[in-house]
């Protein structure tokens, strides 16, 4: 079952006629993600990888019952693409595009909240329920269906954690990547309750990082959860004032330092891995 995305969904790609959209569509077809088509304004009537292309999202909703979208269009077009997906009533939207203007993202967030759409990103690697549907750039070959939920700020670090889980024979229920842009639509605290309520998830991994305060809100939610949570906060060795790759990963004030976040997690009963390689063993021990 998992959360946010499943076999029952009907997936579309906005920007399917671009290079990234096309390869994502081919990959989804190869691994049986329930993709039904794509949208690119002005390219309606074309086909990509055998899939129909529409001019507007609402047309795919009307004709093919689309429920979820993967958006990979240039930053200048991302706001309109995402607002269109929200307005058409899609349930889950991944904004794969990175470096989306801040004010565009804030408008997306306000609109999504009003309509009840869950938007991941910008700069999100997406979400995937292994074996059911893959709305992400994660390679299906590296995923195993299972009962561990993952919610992460970072894409690449998620691959590492999944690799560790696989080696211990632990599969994943759903993997959710929140996105690396400084301001993102969905936070840990929004996703954790979904995992707690999911009958197919036994434990949750949270992969945070320095910068921002989302991990502190997550700790408050984790305190209320019935399922075990294991957290890792990347960048504890980073010097203050240095921006560490993700635009958001910079320690500017005390609240954003790794030590503060780790302490908040520990107080909330969350097990904290000091190193990324310790995450999977800690999860195994918490089951």
């Amino acid at each position, binding site marked *: 079952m998992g959360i946010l995305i499943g076999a029952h969904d009907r997936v579309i790609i906005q920007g399917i006629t671009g290079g990234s959209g096309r390869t994502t569509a081919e990959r989804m077809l190869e691994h049986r993600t329930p993709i039904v088509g794509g949208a690119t304004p002005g390219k309606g009537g074309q086909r990509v990888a055998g899939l129909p292309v529409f001019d507007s999202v609402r047309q795919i909703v009307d004709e093919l019952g689309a429920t979820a979208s993967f958006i990979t269009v240039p930053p200048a077009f991302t706001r309109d693409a995402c607002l269109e997906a929200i307005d058409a009533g899609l349930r889950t939207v991944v904004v794969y595009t990175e470096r989306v203007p801040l004010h565009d993202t804030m408008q997306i967030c306000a609109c999504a909240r009003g309509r009840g759409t869950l938007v991941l990103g910008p700069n999100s690697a997406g979400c995937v329920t292994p074996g059911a549907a893959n709305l992400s750039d994660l390679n299906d070959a590296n995923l195993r269906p299972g009962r561990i939920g993952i919610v992460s700020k970072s894409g690449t*670090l998620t691959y590492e954690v999944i690799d560790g889980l696989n080696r211990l024979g632990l599969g994943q229920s759903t993997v959710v990547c929140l996105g690396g842009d400084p301001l993102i639509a969905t936070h840990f605290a929004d996703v954790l309750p979904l995992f707690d309520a999911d009958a197919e998830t036994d434990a949750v991994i949270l992969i945070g990082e320095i910068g921002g305060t989302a991990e502190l809100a997550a700790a408050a939610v984790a305190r209320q959860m019935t399922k075990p949570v294991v957290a890792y906060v990347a*960048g504890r060795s980073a010097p203050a004032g*240095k921006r*560490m790759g*993700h635009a*958001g990963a910079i320690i500017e004030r005390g609240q954003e330092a790794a030590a503060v976040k780790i302490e908040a997690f520990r107080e909330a009963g969350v097990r904290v891995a000091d190193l990324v*390689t310790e995450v999977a063993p800690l999860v195994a021990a918490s089951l």
Partner: protein
Amino acid sequence: MRLYEHEGKTLLADHGVAVPRGALWPGMPDGPGPFVVKAQVLAGKRGRRGLIKSAPDRAACGREADALLAMRADGEPVAAVYVEERLDVARELYLAVLADRQRRAPLVLATARGGMDVEEVPDEDLIRLPVDPLLGLRPFAGRYLASRLGCGGDLAGQLTGVAAGVYGAFAEAEAELVEVNPLVVTRDGRLVAADAKVVLDDNAAFRHPERTARPDAGAGFEQRCAALGVVGVEMEGSIAIIVSGAGLMMATADLLAAGGGRLRAAIDLGGAVFQDPARLEQVVREVLRLRPSAVLVNAFFQLASCELLARGVAGALRAEDSKTPIVVRLRGRGMAEARAVLEPLGLPLREDLEDACREVLARGRGA
């Protein structure tokens, strides 16, 4: 991109916010003195740094300007000097609009205790008002702020206008932050923005072609990395890491730190891994030129090819004729091809992250 004070004030004035009469030295504002002479730097806390002076007349302004132009703030040279009429201050407020990451919306921050660092204002004296970006800052929000800030009568109307102007500047210029501190109430009952701190969103620059990008201060390692499309961070230690993604970069740094290693540099390759090997080669060469004790290349690819990165490393080693020990850990597509590229150079391909970290720590120590 940060704006200098005088640029920020022009932005505010364009949105109907009153600012002091001012001019860039050697220009002078209209009207008699006294004046305030202000160094234009991007660094904060100018008052405490001695970068803001008073002067009674034009001659004194000139003396202060000459002195300020020779000064620096944390190494940053003074770009210009701005001369303003000195305000007759009755009260100092604080008003800012910023993009709040936690609330995912614009947030107005305000306090009647302006002038000081806002972090030092007690929580109960700080007004936080989220704004729905789809609605904008409406007059009712201005009235709420006026009432909370103790601005009655004519001042309430002025404050509503200032709040709308500051928000308008924030939204239209696509800023991360517009901060007015202090927002001065003059003895004759006017509301005037005595300072302006504006940070613009670089990701929105394409919509503001009139905005000329400021040449980045310095031409160091981090700027050269940015020019190559990757994020480079220069530090004081000895080991350099080149990693496929920001999260994995930080996690790799943590692993090395736990093993006693200190970083000389860290690179997040980001999207550059999908580009040509020539660019990857340039990135690796930049790292080698920092003369690290050892280099760890660590990539876990889902879509990109390991071979491309391997070719970049091999090309850089040849071009720089470098003897720097390199440990390459790659996972993902194209591993066999990557191995074929690297092994003739005596670089065995590592797959396990912890093994690779241990090895680079040992090689960095000369083992």
